[in-house]
Protein backbone atom coordinates (compact mmCIF):
# COMPACT_ATOMS: atom_id res chain seq x y z
CA UNK A 1 0.00 0.00 0.00
CA UNK A 2 2.62 2.54 1.05
CA UNK A 3 5.33 2.25 -1.59
CA UNK A 4 5.91 5.96 -1.80
CA UNK A 5 5.91 7.29 1.73
CA UNK A 6 8.52 4.96 3.16
CA UNK A 7 6.52 4.04 6.25
CA UNK A 8 7.41 0.37 5.89
CA UNK A 9 11.11 1.14 6.13
CA UNK A 10 11.45 3.75 8.82
CA UNK A 11 14.89 5.23 9.19
CA UNK A 12 16.60 5.05 12.59
CA UNK A 13 13.51 3.49 14.10
CA UNK A 14 13.57 1.72 17.45
CA UNK A 15 14.13 -2.03 17.35
CA UNK A 16 11.52 -3.97 19.29
CA UNK A 17 12.31 -7.56 20.13
CA UNK A 18 9.73 -9.76 21.79
CA UNK A 19 11.54 -12.16 24.07
CA UNK A 20 10.35 -15.24 26.00
CA UNK A 21 7.56 -14.73 28.45
CA UNK A 22 8.44 -13.34 31.84
CA UNK A 23 7.31 -15.55 34.68
CA UNK A 24 5.96 -13.98 37.85
CA UNK A 25 7.29 -14.80 41.31
CA UNK A 26 10.72 -15.56 42.69
CA UNK A 27 11.85 -17.59 39.66
CA UNK A 28 11.42 -14.58 37.37
CA UNK A 29 15.01 -13.41 37.66
CA UNK A 30 16.23 -16.57 35.97
CA UNK A 31 14.26 -15.77 32.84
CA UNK A 32 16.22 -12.55 32.42
CA UNK A 33 17.76 -11.47 29.23
CA UNK A 34 21.54 -11.89 29.19
CA UNK A 35 23.61 -9.93 26.73
CA UNK A 36 26.07 -11.94 24.66
CA UNK A 37 29.51 -12.00 26.31
CA UNK A 38 31.59 -8.91 25.72
CA UNK A 39 28.58 -6.90 24.57
CA UNK A 40 27.73 -4.69 27.48
CA UNK A 41 26.89 -5.20 31.11
CA UNK A 42 23.48 -6.10 32.53
CA UNK A 43 22.06 -3.76 35.17
CA UNK A 44 19.08 -5.08 37.16
CA UNK A 45 16.27 -2.56 37.59
CA UNK A 46 12.94 -4.31 38.28
CA UNK A 47 11.03 -1.08 38.89
CA UNK A 48 7.54 -0.09 37.80
CA UNK A 49 7.50 2.28 34.82
CA UNK A 50 5.05 4.51 36.72
CA UNK A 51 6.91 4.08 40.03
CA UNK A 52 7.74 7.78 40.27
CA UNK A 53 4.12 8.79 39.62
CA UNK A 54 2.88 6.22 42.13
CA UNK A 55 5.34 7.55 44.74
CA UNK A 56 4.05 11.12 44.32
CA UNK A 57 0.47 9.79 44.36
CA UNK A 58 1.21 8.07 47.69
CA UNK A 59 2.59 11.39 49.01
CA UNK A 60 -0.63 13.17 47.90
CA UNK A 61 -2.71 10.42 49.53
CA UNK A 62 -0.84 10.83 52.85
CA UNK A 63 -1.44 14.56 52.72
CA UNK A 64 -5.18 14.00 52.12
CA UNK A 65 -5.34 11.51 54.99
CA UNK A 66 -3.64 13.89 57.43
CA UNK A 67 -5.94 16.75 56.44
CA UNK A 68 -8.98 14.44 56.32
CA UNK A 69 -9.66 15.56 52.74
CA UNK A 70 -11.61 13.21 50.47
CA UNK A 71 -10.20 13.56 46.96
CA UNK A 72 -12.28 12.29 44.02
CA UNK A 73 -10.88 11.94 40.51
CA UNK A 74 -13.66 12.63 37.97
CA UNK A 75 -13.05 10.94 34.63
CA UNK A 76 -15.11 10.70 31.43
CA UNK A 77 -15.19 11.41 27.70
CA UNK A 78 -15.29 15.09 26.75
CA UNK A 79 -18.80 16.51 27.01
CA UNK A 80 -20.31 14.11 29.57
CA UNK A 81 -21.14 17.02 31.87
CA UNK A 82 -18.37 16.85 34.48
CA UNK A 83 -18.21 20.60 35.03
CA UNK A 84 -22.01 20.97 35.12
CA UNK A 85 -22.20 18.16 37.70
CA UNK A 86 -19.59 19.97 39.80
CA UNK A 87 -21.41 23.32 39.55
CA UNK A 88 -24.67 21.73 40.72
CA UNK A 89 -22.97 19.65 43.43
CA UNK A 90 -21.16 22.69 44.83
CA UNK A 91 -24.38 24.76 44.83
CA UNK A 92 -26.21 21.99 46.71
CA UNK A 93 -23.50 21.30 49.33
CA UNK A 94 -22.18 24.83 49.84
CA UNK A 95 -22.35 25.86 53.51
CA UNK A 96 -22.52 22.21 54.55
CA UNK A 97 -19.16 20.76 53.42
CA UNK A 98 -16.04 22.77 52.48
CA UNK A 99 -15.02 21.99 48.88
CA UNK A 100 -12.23 22.76 46.42
CA UNK A 101 -11.59 21.87 42.78
CA UNK A 102 -8.59 21.11 40.59
CA UNK A 103 -9.54 21.52 36.93
CA UNK A 104 -7.58 19.64 34.26
CA UNK A 105 -7.84 20.66 30.60
CA UNK A 106 -5.39 20.78 27.74
CA UNK A 107 -6.08 24.48 27.20
CA UNK A 108 -8.09 27.44 28.55
CA UNK A 109 -9.28 28.65 31.96
CA UNK A 110 -12.94 28.25 30.96
CA UNK A 111 -13.85 25.46 33.40
CA UNK A 112 -11.98 27.12 36.27
CA UNK A 113 -13.92 30.33 35.60
CA UNK A 114 -17.20 28.41 35.81
CA UNK A 115 -16.16 26.83 39.13
CA UNK A 116 -14.84 30.13 40.48
CA UNK A 117 -18.30 31.61 39.94
CA UNK A 118 -19.66 29.09 42.50
CA UNK A 119 -17.36 30.60 45.14
CA UNK A 120 -15.11 27.62 45.98
CA UNK A 121 -11.28 27.63 45.62
CA UNK A 122 -10.16 26.32 42.23
CA UNK A 123 -6.83 25.74 40.48
CA UNK A 124 -6.68 25.20 36.72
CA UNK A 125 -4.01 22.83 35.40
CA UNK A 126 -3.35 23.06 31.67
CA UNK A 127 -1.69 19.90 30.39
CA UNK A 128 -0.82 21.36 26.97
CA UNK A 129 -0.44 18.34 24.71
CA UNK A 130 -0.93 15.97 27.66
CA UNK A 131 -4.01 13.77 27.60
CA UNK A 132 -4.33 13.19 31.36
CA UNK A 133 -3.40 14.59 34.77
CA UNK A 134 -0.53 12.96 36.65
CA UNK A 135 0.29 12.88 40.36
CA UNK A 136 2.93 15.62 40.10
CA UNK A 137 0.50 18.07 38.42
CA UNK A 138 -1.91 17.48 41.31
CA UNK A 139 0.93 17.88 43.83
CA UNK A 140 1.87 21.24 42.30
CA UNK A 141 -1.78 22.33 42.32
CA UNK A 142 -2.09 21.36 46.01
CA UNK A 143 0.62 23.91 46.84
CA UNK A 144 -1.71 26.59 45.49
CA UNK A 145 -4.77 25.46 47.48
CA UNK A 146 -5.55 25.93 51.15
CA UNK A 147 -7.67 22.85 51.84
CA UNK A 148 -9.97 22.80 54.87
CA UNK A 149 -10.09 19.74 57.15
CA UNK A 150 -13.02 17.36 56.53
CA UNK A 151 -13.48 18.72 53.04
CA UNK A 152 -14.06 17.40 49.54
CA UNK A 153 -11.56 17.92 46.73
CA UNK A 154 -12.86 17.29 43.23
CA UNK A 155 -10.17 16.68 40.62
CA UNK A 156 -11.73 17.07 37.17
CA UNK A 157 -9.48 15.11 34.83
CA UNK A 158 -8.94 15.85 31.14
CA UNK A 159 -11.90 14.58 29.09
CA UNK A 160 -10.52 11.25 27.86
CA UNK A 161 -11.87 7.77 28.57
CA UNK A 162 -8.53 5.99 28.05
CA UNK A 163 -5.34 7.52 29.43
CA UNK A 164 -6.39 8.87 32.86
CA UNK A 165 -7.18 5.28 33.95
CA UNK A 166 -3.46 4.48 34.24
CA UNK A 167 -2.38 7.40 36.42
CA UNK A 168 -2.97 7.33 40.16
CA UNK A 169 -3.31 10.88 41.51
CA UNK A 170 -3.61 9.90 45.17
CA UNK A 171 -7.42 10.09 45.08
CA UNK A 172 -9.73 8.14 47.38
CA UNK A 173 -11.79 7.03 44.36
CA UNK A 174 -12.26 7.52 40.65
CA UNK A 175 -15.76 8.53 39.62
CA UNK A 176 -16.51 7.71 35.98
CA UNK A 177 -19.26 9.69 34.26
CA UNK A 178 -21.17 8.55 31.19
CA UNK A 179 -23.97 10.59 29.65
CA UNK A 180 -27.01 9.13 27.93
CA UNK A 181 -26.11 10.89 24.69
CA UNK A 182 -23.16 8.48 24.41
CA UNK A 183 -23.41 4.80 23.50
CA UNK A 184 -24.47 2.44 26.29
CA UNK A 185 -21.68 0.12 25.11
CA UNK A 186 -18.91 2.51 26.28
CA UNK A 187 -18.05 0.28 29.27
CA UNK A 188 -17.31 -2.57 26.84
CA UNK A 189 -15.32 -0.36 24.46
CA UNK A 190 -13.28 1.38 27.17
CA UNK A 191 -13.10 -1.19 29.97
CA UNK A 192 -9.94 0.12 31.67
CA UNK A 193 -11.66 3.25 32.95
CA UNK A 194 -14.73 1.42 34.25
CA UNK A 195 -12.42 -1.14 35.83
CA UNK A 196 -10.46 1.58 37.66
CA UNK A 197 -13.53 3.47 38.94
CA UNK A 198 -15.45 2.91 42.18
CA UNK A 199 -18.55 4.88 41.26
CA UNK A 200 -20.37 5.56 37.98
CA UNK A 201 -22.63 8.55 37.38
CA UNK A 202 -25.03 8.19 34.46
CA UNK A 203 -25.73 11.82 33.57
CA UNK A 204 -28.25 13.75 31.42
CA UNK A 205 -31.12 11.40 32.34
CA UNK A 206 -33.53 14.22 31.46
CA UNK A 207 -32.71 13.42 27.81
CA UNK A 208 -33.67 9.71 28.07
CA UNK A 209 -37.06 10.18 26.31
CA UNK A 210 -35.21 11.54 23.26
CA UNK A 211 -32.37 9.01 22.89
CA UNK A 212 -32.04 5.22 22.53
CA UNK A 213 -29.74 4.81 25.54
CA UNK A 214 -30.65 1.67 27.54
CA UNK A 215 -29.69 2.39 31.16
CA UNK A 216 -30.13 -1.20 32.37
CA UNK A 217 -27.88 -2.50 29.60
CA UNK A 218 -25.23 0.14 30.31
CA UNK A 219 -25.18 -0.90 33.98
CA UNK A 220 -24.98 -4.56 33.03
CA UNK A 221 -22.02 -3.91 30.69
CA UNK A 222 -20.22 -1.83 33.32
CA UNK A 223 -20.76 -4.54 35.96
CA UNK A 224 -19.26 -7.11 33.61
CA UNK A 225 -16.06 -5.07 33.67
CA UNK A 226 -16.20 -4.16 37.37
CA UNK A 227 -18.57 -6.04 39.65
CA UNK A 228 -17.88 -3.60 42.55
CA UNK A 229 -19.14 -0.53 40.64
CA UNK A 230 -21.94 1.54 42.24
CA UNK A 231 -24.24 3.77 40.17
CA UNK A 232 -26.27 6.95 40.42
CA UNK A 233 -28.51 8.12 37.58
CA UNK A 234 -28.59 11.90 37.59
CA UNK A 235 -29.43 15.00 35.61
CA UNK A 236 -27.13 17.82 36.64
CA UNK A 237 -29.36 20.14 34.60
CA UNK A 238 -32.72 19.39 36.29
CA UNK A 239 -31.38 18.02 39.60
CA UNK A 240 -33.16 14.69 39.14
CA UNK A 241 -31.33 11.89 41.01
CA UNK A 242 -28.87 14.30 42.65
CA UNK A 243 -29.86 13.47 46.29
CA UNK A 244 -28.39 9.94 46.02
CA UNK A 245 -25.05 11.27 44.77
CA UNK A 246 -25.01 14.04 47.41
CA UNK A 247 -25.70 11.51 50.19
CA UNK A 248 -22.87 9.34 48.86
CA UNK A 249 -20.54 12.36 49.06
CA UNK A 250 -21.68 13.13 52.65
CA UNK A 251 -20.97 9.50 53.60
CA UNK A 252 -17.37 9.80 52.36
CA UNK A 253 -16.42 12.60 54.81
Amino acid at each position, binding site marked *: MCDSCGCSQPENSV*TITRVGQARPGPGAAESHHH*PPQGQGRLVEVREAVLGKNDGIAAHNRDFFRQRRVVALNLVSSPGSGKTTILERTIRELRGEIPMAVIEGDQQTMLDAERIEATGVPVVQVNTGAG*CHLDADMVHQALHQLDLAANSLLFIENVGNL*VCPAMFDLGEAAKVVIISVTEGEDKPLKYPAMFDAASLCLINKTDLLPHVDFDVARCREYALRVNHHLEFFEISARTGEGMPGWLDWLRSQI
Partner: protein
Amino acid sequence: MHEMSLAINIVELVSEKAQAAGARKVMAIELEVGRLSGLMVEALAFCFEAVARDTLAEGAELLIRELDGLGNCLTCGHAFALDSLLAQCPQCGGYAVETVQGRELKVLSLTIDE
Protein backbone atom coordinates in the same frame (compact mmCIF):
# COMPACT_ATOMS: atom_id res chain seq x y z
CA MET B 1 -1.74 8.51 23.65
CA HIS B 2 -0.53 7.75 27.18
CA GLU B 3 2.44 5.95 25.58
CA MET B 4 4.13 9.37 25.39
CA SER B 5 3.95 9.74 29.17
CA LEU B 6 5.06 6.16 29.61
CA ALA B 7 8.02 6.71 27.25
CA ILE B 8 9.03 9.81 29.25
CA ASN B 9 8.82 7.80 32.49
CA ILE B 10 10.87 4.97 31.00
CA VAL B 11 13.57 7.29 29.67
CA GLU B 12 13.81 9.16 33.02
CA LEU B 13 14.09 5.90 34.99
CA VAL B 14 16.55 4.36 32.54
CA SER B 15 18.74 7.50 32.36
CA GLU B 16 18.92 7.68 36.15
CA LYS B 17 19.89 4.00 36.51
CA ALA B 18 22.33 4.13 33.60
CA GLN B 19 24.06 7.21 34.97
CA ALA B 20 24.37 5.61 38.42
CA ALA B 21 25.94 2.54 36.80
CA GLY B 22 28.44 4.70 34.91
CA ALA B 23 27.06 3.90 31.46
CA ARG B 24 28.24 5.67 28.33
CA LYS B 25 25.26 4.36 26.46
CA VAL B 26 22.23 2.12 26.99
CA MET B 27 22.20 -0.67 24.42
CA ALA B 28 19.02 -2.46 25.45
CA ILE B 29 16.08 -1.98 27.81
CA GLU B 30 14.21 -5.06 28.97
CA LEU B 31 10.54 -4.33 29.74
CA GLU B 32 7.89 -6.51 31.30
CA VAL B 33 4.51 -5.67 29.76
CA GLY B 34 1.33 -7.29 31.00
CA ARG B 35 -1.16 -7.90 28.21
CA LEU B 36 -3.84 -6.07 30.24
CA SER B 37 -1.61 -3.10 31.09
CA GLY B 38 -3.08 -0.91 28.34
CA LEU B 39 0.30 -0.36 26.68
CA MET B 40 0.62 -0.64 22.91
CA VAL B 41 4.21 -1.68 22.25
CA GLU B 42 4.39 -0.18 18.74
CA ALA B 43 3.03 3.15 19.98
CA LEU B 44 5.55 3.08 22.81
CA ALA B 45 8.44 2.48 20.40
CA PHE B 46 7.32 5.43 18.28
CA CYS B 47 7.27 7.75 21.32
CA PHE B 48 10.42 6.27 22.80
CA GLU B 49 12.43 7.21 19.73
CA ALA B 50 11.46 10.87 20.10
CA VAL B 51 11.86 11.01 23.88
CA ALA B 52 15.19 9.14 24.03
CA ARG B 53 16.91 11.50 21.57
CA ASP B 54 20.02 13.11 23.13
CA THR B 55 19.82 10.90 26.23
CA LEU B 56 21.83 7.82 27.27
CA ALA B 57 18.88 5.74 26.04
CA GLU B 58 19.05 6.98 22.43
CA GLY B 59 19.16 4.08 20.02
CA ALA B 60 18.53 1.43 22.68
CA GLU B 61 16.78 -1.75 21.64
CA LEU B 62 13.50 -2.50 23.44
CA LEU B 63 13.29 -6.08 24.64
CA ILE B 64 9.65 -6.79 25.43
CA ARG B 65 8.63 -9.62 27.73
CA GLU B 66 4.89 -9.94 27.50
CA LEU B 67 3.08 -11.34 30.49
CA ASP B 68 -0.25 -13.13 29.93
CA GLY B 69 -3.35 -12.14 31.81
CA LEU B 70 -4.51 -14.52 34.53
CA GLY B 71 -7.88 -14.34 36.26
CA ASN B 72 -9.53 -15.94 39.23
CA CYS B 73 -13.31 -16.41 39.22
CA LEU B 74 -14.73 -15.08 42.50
CA THR B 75 -17.89 -17.17 42.06
CA CYS B 76 -16.52 -20.66 41.45
CA GLY B 77 -12.79 -20.25 42.11
CA HIS B 78 -11.71 -21.31 38.61
CA ALA B 79 -8.33 -19.89 37.47
CA PHE B 80 -8.01 -19.14 33.76
CA ALA B 81 -6.15 -17.10 31.10
CA LEU B 82 -7.55 -13.57 30.65
CA ASP B 83 -7.30 -11.84 27.29
CA SER B 84 -9.27 -8.74 28.32
CA LEU B 85 -10.72 -6.98 31.34
CA LEU B 86 -14.11 -8.20 30.09
CA ALA B 87 -13.48 -11.89 30.46
CA GLN B 88 -16.20 -14.27 31.50
CA CYS B 89 -15.41 -17.39 33.55
CA PRO B 90 -15.34 -20.34 31.12
CA GLN B 91 -16.54 -22.66 33.89
CA CYS B 92 -19.53 -20.88 35.46
CA GLY B 93 -20.12 -17.93 33.11
CA GLY B 94 -19.66 -15.35 35.87
CA TYR B 95 -18.13 -11.91 35.29
CA ALA B 96 -16.88 -11.40 38.87
CA VAL B 97 -13.27 -12.09 37.98
CA GLU B 98 -10.21 -10.91 39.87
CA THR B 99 -7.20 -10.07 37.71
CA VAL B 100 -4.17 -11.73 39.30
CA GLN B 101 -1.64 -11.10 36.53
CA GLY B 102 -1.38 -9.03 33.35
CA ARG B 103 -1.35 -5.39 34.55
CA GLU B 104 2.44 -5.26 35.07
CA LEU B 105 4.55 -2.55 33.47
CA LYS B 106 8.16 -2.68 34.60
CA VAL B 107 11.70 -1.98 33.55
CA LEU B 108 13.44 -5.29 34.33
CA SER B 109 17.00 -4.55 33.28
CA LEU B 110 19.34 -2.50 31.13
CA THR B 111 22.28 -3.55 29.01
CA ILE B 112 24.86 -0.78 29.18
CA ASP B 113 28.09 0.04 27.42
CA GLU B 114 30.66 1.36 29.90
